[in-house]
């Protein structure tokens, strides 16, 4: 599993909250740093793909463990 610089716990939250929190967290990172988000909303898989596409950040990895999803996003 890739290393990350900041972790965001978005478990139990539904769209748009995980995306909103991720957007705020990424603002505090510098280019090249990695944000890891853990979420439970199955819709977050599509949402974070779309988020990265629209913001120019890179979705490095999407992981699933039971009902939890983790996303590693590198700030562009």
């Amino acid at each position, binding site marked *: 599993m890739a290393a990350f610089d900041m972790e965001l716990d978005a478990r139990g939250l*539904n769209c*748009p909250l995980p*995306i*909103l929190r991720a957007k705020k967290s990424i603002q505090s990172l510098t280019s090249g740093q990695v944000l890891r988000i853990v979420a439970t909303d199955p819709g977050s898989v599509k*949402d974070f793909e*779309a988020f990265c596409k*629209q913001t120019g950040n890179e979705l490095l990895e999407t992981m699933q463990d039971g009902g939890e999803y983790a996303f590693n996003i590198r700030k562009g």
Partner: protein
Amino acid sequence: MGFRCLTRGKSGLTKRLKASERKAAILAVAKVLFSDKGYHGVSVDEIARRVGVSPAILYRHFPSKESLYEEVLNQIACKRESYVEAVVQSDGSFSEVLRMITRRYVESVSRDPDYLRMELQSALEGSDATRQFFENRWRPFTDYIEVTIRELQPTGKVQQTDGRIAALMFQGMLREALYAKCIFRTPRYRELDLNELTDYLVTLFFRAIGYREDND
């Protein structure tokens, strides 16, 4: 009640449909019928007749009326609105995000009034699971409003308010606007179109919770 004709049973066209097309035709007709008459008001025979297939063929695709209804709901679930664009384009404030996700939802639902009718029908007769399904469609609003009010309260940007109740009242107002404009087509609110009405109710909501849109 006026049914919209989706396929013509006697034209022979449906006989040439591929299995996947036939399945899609069954789902489309079922959605219109369930939305007009409710789950209990529609029989498998009627759906089959409207599609122009025999009940036996319908059962080949869907083993029961329940499974057909579930599949109609699944299709709705797959078309879940995406609020990513709204969040990315907004400044992240309560004011902008709530306005943008509300517009996005209204835009999507007003294109599909059958969905709203199904929601209304389910409120009267649906199972708990079905009611839950429709309630979940509102969760982006209720969760977002509740969590944001809770976070803003210590900063004094909103009044002491029960976030859950405020969120549900917002949901009720938005439902009223959608039902009035997309289903009942009543003359109430005639001076406003749906988008203006939606914007107005978001403004009313912010005022009610004591949130000033320029202070976030």
